[in-house]
């Protein structure tokens, strides 16, 4: 199927172009690709600020000691436009963060993939949000 191949190829080239349009600042300059990190914690507060949102979470280690981490996200403008508000991620919500630790060694990471403990993505699954579907969110099915 030549046509099929054309479509796939065209789609791939566009996806590629889309994926290299990066955020407002370089994340690779701020976070370390060699320091992947996984955090499980509860939301302490969210800074709904520009240019990037920061989610503060309390993470308990094996000894029960609690450490505060800051997790970087994107602009709140996109979420606001999709009808999400500050109430969408209330204090005390448990989340999982799969990201990269800051190069400066502080308790900061980027929220490369942030989910609820059951695997659902934050902010996804709300109808009309305009966010791309990826099939991982149970609410999409």
């Amino acid at each position, binding site marked *: 199927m*030549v*046509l099929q*191949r*054309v*479509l796939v*190829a*065209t789609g791939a*080239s*566009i*996806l*590629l*172009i*889309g*994926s*290299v*349009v*990066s*955020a407002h*600042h*370089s*994340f*690779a*300059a*701020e*976070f*370390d*690709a060699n320091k*992947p990190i996984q955090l499980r914690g509860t939301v302490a507060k969210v800074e709904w*600020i*520009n*240019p*990037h*949102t*920061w989610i503060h979470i309390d993470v308990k280690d094996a000894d029960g000691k609690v450490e505060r981490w*800051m997790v*970087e*996200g*994107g*602009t709140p*403008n*996109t*979420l*606001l*436009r999709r009808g999400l508000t500050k109430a969408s991620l209330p204090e005390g919500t448990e989340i999982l963060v799969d990201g*990269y630790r800051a*190069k*400066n*060694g502080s308790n*900061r990471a*980027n929220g*490369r*993939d*942030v989910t609820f403990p059951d695997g659902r*993505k*934050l902010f*996804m699954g709300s109808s009309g949000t*305009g966010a*791309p579907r*990826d099939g*991982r969110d149970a609410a999409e099915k």
Partner: protein
Amino acid sequence: MNKRLFTILATATILAPVCALAQTPRSAPATDGAAATKKYTPARTPWGEPDLQGTFSNRTITPFERPANVSGREFFTPEEVAALEKRAQEQSGDEGRNKGTRGDVERAYNDFWWDRGTKVTTPRTSLVIEPADGRVPELTEEAKKRAADEGKRPAFRGAGANGRGADTWLDRSTFERCITRGMPGAMSPTAYNNNYRITQSPGYVAIQIEMLGGARVIPTDGRPHVNQSIRQWMGNSVARWEGDTLVVDTTNFTDKVLYRGAAENLHLVERFTRVAPGQIDYRVTITDPTTFTKPWTVAIPYVDTGEDMFEYACHEGNYGMEGILSGAREEERAAASGKGK
């Protein structure tokens, strides 16, 4: 210069799979700006000018330059458009992640934060419409030499790429520094905040830009450019009406922002034409004989969203800059103690 951006774009093109193309007839769908221009007469303001006012988005999944696999073809077929939009709706950079790579870090965060769009807002195979091959013209020899020299300097002026040195915030791009994307960067789509509000009054057109904030206030009263000694981040714009089209002429750029290797010698001519009730056909012709071997033109649909604009107070919490500079110091310490990578 923003060599990295060049590299990225070039890589994207090279990586685009090249395959045998079924040759399809060239067609100009009704949504295409040029085709629709002849049919639609825009409403007038109370003082008789074509009415361009509204809130628009220029996000699009149409490639900036024509990908190699559709080389020689000006338009996608309706089937290809449908496939591209389906793909964009279903795409996710959250899947198939190449963990532990710079690319994965640079992808930054989940897709729900991004707003690149899921529509082919023009069925053209590239936003670049001139030259006819849909590609940015070659740089002049002078510009190539400048780029090479620039690559040796620690400081970095580019607005579009990710910067290079991190000795001081001055090494970082003007975009990272929350200053400006420059021109025509500020009028070009990016990964989010692709929103613009146009308002008119007798003698002026104002364009409010969501990404990084700010507004262009452009006189339409026939005045000339300001003295050439006055140089500005966004240049100096003056406008006139040609039929239903607002023609904006911009010169007097500073040398502090680069656009694909061009800076103070840039000359831009933008054309805004409302081609349908909900759409402006935006075109910009980019001329700089010291940088590009020929002038080139980009056409981007501005689609009426009817939505609000949001403030993007970039300095509100630019913790990223602190993280970049302190991260670089930490890497230097590690290198000095022999633990560097």
